[in-house]
């Protein structure tokens, strides 16, 4: 069995599952946020009663992150609903807005808080819940009804997916980031190329990545329609998780006889910096093909491109340069924001590097990654042409339907912010790398 099949079999109390089986699994963690939490809570109460208690207080994690710094009354009401539910149910893992506890983007906060544990089953009311597969967890997005069902029962049905394997052989060149790998794959297989399937990433190119790089890969499996992404856990995984939680976990690995839907092999040395052109994540081009394309804005943030390693990469390129276009820097979480003020490159903190280059500095949240209310930080309200480290560029995703979004790695976004046109990061990286 593959790792995914094994996790689901164990969670279903079976010794074996095969792809296509529908199984009812016990859920280890349920995640929700401010957009989908309130309707899920509404359904939970409607179906299980006004005074029903959730199945397990310690397994429900609520992380408001989407519409945080807005005057929109409806959006703020959503936070109120979460707050009163958390207090009524006495939930230990609610990370309230405006408190010390506030975290920001859930998919980056979840690992920071130790909720992404190898071998477990995580469901979340957000499609990028698949990010946690980087830790060898089965993690996938669900809707409000399914979340409400879990709140009451602790169970959900899933169809066991086939697994597609993606192998990156050899060392990844220093100008290539995890984002280039995943944009390449999505461009190759299309936005529905992995629908209903698991995507596993492996090979020494992947296994040498730190957890944040692996998270960038698994984050975007949903952009290929994938159900979950997965990287087999190893010492890198265990070290990261053990530093953040004492919670026991039981990792699972692929069996030697595991069967795959398909296997694709990439030679890491042949990879190129990639973009996804408007208006689809699979509309791939190499940076070389589109270099010189005029831009009006750059955006560095979100669950896939707003981690500390993403900012370290961007800062390496931006330091000492002036920027030609408005550039927005949005740390995914408060922890990342704190690190921006601590981590240095050539003696300067990342925060200082961005600020002195004239970047607009945002608060930890999803911000303009999904457009949001019209007063959202960095939102594309007009006919902007934006290059972004986020994960989606469907029409109107970051605000106005009239805007265009190019997706790229933090290196490419940073280099393009300096030049004001799409630019190959190799032009700005020190020659030694």
């Amino acid at each position, binding site marked *: 069995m593959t790792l995914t099949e094994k996790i689901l079999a164990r969670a279903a109390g079976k010794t074996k599952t095969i792809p296509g089986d529908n199984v009812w699994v016990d859920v280890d963690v349920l995640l929700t946020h401010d957009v*989908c939490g309130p309707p899920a809570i509404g359904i939970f109460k409607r179906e299980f009663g006004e005074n029903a208690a959730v199945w397990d207080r310690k397994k429900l994690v609520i992380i408001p992150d989407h519409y945080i710094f807005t005057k929109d009354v409806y959006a703020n009401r959503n936070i109120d609903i979460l707050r009163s539910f958390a207090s009524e149910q006495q939930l230990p893992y609610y990370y309230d807005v405006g408190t010390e506890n506030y975290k920001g983007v859930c998919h980056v906060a979840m690992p920071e808080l130790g909720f992404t544990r190898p071998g477990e089953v995580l469901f979340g009311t957000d499609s990028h819940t698949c990010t946690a597969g980087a830790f060898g967890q089965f993690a996938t997005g669900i809707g409000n009804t*399914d979340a409400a069902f879990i709140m009451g029962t602790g169970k959900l049905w899933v169809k066991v997916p086939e697994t597609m394997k993606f192998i990156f052989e050899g060392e990844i060149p220093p100008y290539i980031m995890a984002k280039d790998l995943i944009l390449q794959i999505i461009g190759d297989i299309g936005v529905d190329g992995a629908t209903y399937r698991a995507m596993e990433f492996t090979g020494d190119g992947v296994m040498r990545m730190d957890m944040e790089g692996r998270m960038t890969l698994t984050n975007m499996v949903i952009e290929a329609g994938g159900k979950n992404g997965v990287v087999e856990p190893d010492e890198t995984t265990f070290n990261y998780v053990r530093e953040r939680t004492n919670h026991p976990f039981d990792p699972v690995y692929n069996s030697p006889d595991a069967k795959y839907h398909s296997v694709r092999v990439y030679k890491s040395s042949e990879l190129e910096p990639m973009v996804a052109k408007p208006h689809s994540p699979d509309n791939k081009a190499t940076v070389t093909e589109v270099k010189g394309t005029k831009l009006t804005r750059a955006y560095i943030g979100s669950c896939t491109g707003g981690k500390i390693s993403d900012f370290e990469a961007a800062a390496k390129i931006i330091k000492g340069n002036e920027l030609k276009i408005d550039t927005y820097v949005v740390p995914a979480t408060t922890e990342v924001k704190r690190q921006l003020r601590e981590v240095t490159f050539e003696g300067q903190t990342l925060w200082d590097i961005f600020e002195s280059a004239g970047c607009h500095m945002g608060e930890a949240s999803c911000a303009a990654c999904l*457009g949001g209310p019209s007063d959202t930080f960095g939102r594309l309200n007009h006919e902007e042409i934006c290059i972004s480290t986020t994960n989606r560029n469907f*029409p109107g995703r970051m605000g106005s339907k009239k805007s265009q979004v190019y997706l790229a790695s933090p290196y490419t976004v940073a280099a393009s912010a300096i030049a004001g046109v799409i630019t190959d990061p190799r032009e700005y990286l020190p020659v030694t790398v």
Partner: protein
Amino acid sequence: MKKIVGKAFVLGDDIDTDQIIPAEHLVYSLDKPEEKKFYGRFALSGVPDSVSGLPEGGIPFTQPDKFESDFQIIVAGKNFGCGSSREHAPFALQVAGIKAVIAPGYARIFYRNAIDGGFLIPYECFESLNGTIKTGDELEIDTDLDLLHHKASDKQYPLRPLGDVADIVEAGGIFEYARKNKMF
């Protein structure tokens, strides 16, 4: 025999959930009738005008002063409902009056949400029909025989049987299904 009858609204490939219900509208309550109706008002408002209602486009799914659409069945291209996990997407279509979608394939979270929430029936067709059927055409779906009848051409098109999930569709959603099967 159960029939779903209505007018077609035709769309292209890869209609994502931001087009089905743009993120800025996700703030309304899903229960309060005076707010819920806005989901019907803004359903499919993220679709670029030029491709809204094929083949010509330029047809608003819901008229600007209305909360319900004049169309009851969506005929779309591949990968309908891709993007975010927002259940507001099938919900908004239901509020607008959509009973079924017909597409060659769906993004899995949309498909699941549509069925588990009992919002609408996501039927798979065997070949793309969004080049054959025009916005406004009268359609009839026979849910027992899994057949689509296109009145303008008087042609019948087979739809893929719902298989495993037919029981959940039949029950009207995952809660009804679970109760029927004494799961809680």
